[in-house]
């Protein structure tokens, strides 16, 4: 099983790792298949849209992950992908997008990308519930 250079880069030097001290929302998900756990903390901001109304967007996100190199790198790359995106845009990031952004993942590690997506959606859901 070979990882792309991009996966290895994120694994060895993960981006946006850590916690947000008072996050707007968080979520933690675990994968029973391989025991991976991913946690995202979100800081949500408001900004005006072109039409003058406000939208919620991801001002910051931090991750914490227990798992293999794939689980760590999908978490890291996902944070890069969604920072600055509106919640609507971020909700539409698919696991295929994550895999593509990493220049591919071994087939048996695709579930890690699904887990990262699930975790982000859950955090966004938690935020919306809290509003």
């Amino acid at each position: 099983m070979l990882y792309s250079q991009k996966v290895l880069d994120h694994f060895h030097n993960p981006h946006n790792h850590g916690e947000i001290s008072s996050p707007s929302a968080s979520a933690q998900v675990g994968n029973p298949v391989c025991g991976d756990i991913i946690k995202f903390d979100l800081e949500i901001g408001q900004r005006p849209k072109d039409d003058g109304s406000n939208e919620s967007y991801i001002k910051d996100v931090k991750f914490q992950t227990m798992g293999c190199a794939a689980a760590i790198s999908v978490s890291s790359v996902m944070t890069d992908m969604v920072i600055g995106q509106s919640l609507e845009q971020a909700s539409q990031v698919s696991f295929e997008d994550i895999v593509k952004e990493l220049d591919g993942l071994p087939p048996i590690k695709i579930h890690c990308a699904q887990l990262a997506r699930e975790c982000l959606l859950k955090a966004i859901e938690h935020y919306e519930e809290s509003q």
Partner: protein
Amino acid sequence: MVYFDNAATTAVSELALKEMSPYFSQKYGNASSLHQYGQEASQALSKARQTVTQILGAKPSEIFFTGGASESNNWMIKGVVEAASSLLPAGAKPHLIVSPIEHHCVLDTAEYLEQSGQAQVSWLSVDSAGLVGPRDIISLIQDNTVLVSVMYVNNEIGTIEPIAEIGAALREYNSQNRSVSPLTSHLPLPIAFHTDAVQAVQYLDCRVDRLGVDALSLSAHKFHGPKGVGIAFIRQGTKIARFIHGGAQEANQRAGTENVSGIVGLEAALLEAANNRQKNFEHVSQLQKSLIDQVLRIDNVQLTGPLPGRHRVPHIASFVVSGVDGEALLLRLDSEGFAVSSGSACTSASLDPSHVLLAIGVGEAESHGSIRVSLSSYNTQEEVDQFVVAFKKVIKEVRALAPRLS
């Protein structure tokens, strides 16, 4: 780079490489040819067979060169089952007794025979150190039992199984209950005892009579020989079907042009291992003791398998590190310059955790943090000390990535 993955494979020794090298482009004859090239190759094979014979305490006619232990094990298990099928009374299926912590080449062969309806299999249990009980084996014997398979040394956790004890128990059982000549007797076939000695031969005496085994397998690349060449010892009188059909090589039992250079390398490496066994045992034991002592001082790291002592080989130590994944540790160690392996589900092609760790009672969650460190006589104390420093560092780093478990 420090190489601590010697249970996966080892470096070819300088001596083995030197002995092999003329057999590629100078002495390249086919051992079946009648001309001088062929004779030269054929003599090299006889000499190698003689050396192996002496080290294993066998007869030359009982030693077969194969393409490695996977082939040897497949042949020995399938071959005994096939031969027994035609010797057992009509309707009786050959029955095997197999340890649950075998290498996949034994485990999967037994499962295949079971699933394809060619054999019935009873799986032994092991204790938390990975040891099987000789008495458990005897208690599982049925009239149609034809083979018992227990590895000499486990490749993941380093357990040394009580092979000589099992061999003695089976001999006694056979002498009281089984006939050597099934065709002239109402007694069932003698039970053959098979052991995979791949991880044993470097450090333990593998003479077949001492062990009481009828079939034994070795792979040269695990003892500083080349890859893709191994040995099947099959005791004279063992009922076994042929496996690879074709030419008349290996006494008409294993077809295929012999891997002469590989066999010459195997011979040199095996002789070297046997001649230095005690010295290597002491050196590697010391390294392992130091490794285990130092690693167990790290928080929440456990040794799997037996404690250091008579049930553990000196070269294999596997640990479970809590709160991290073994694959992440392995890759971080790799970038720090240390090659090790892991039994974590995340490193296996199937995402299944190691069957060995599960069989000895390591939980699925714990097994994620598995790291195996396997040494050789080429390693040094300095490498062990450097490894421990790096291991502590990467454990700390990888643990720091994880969320606090609430």
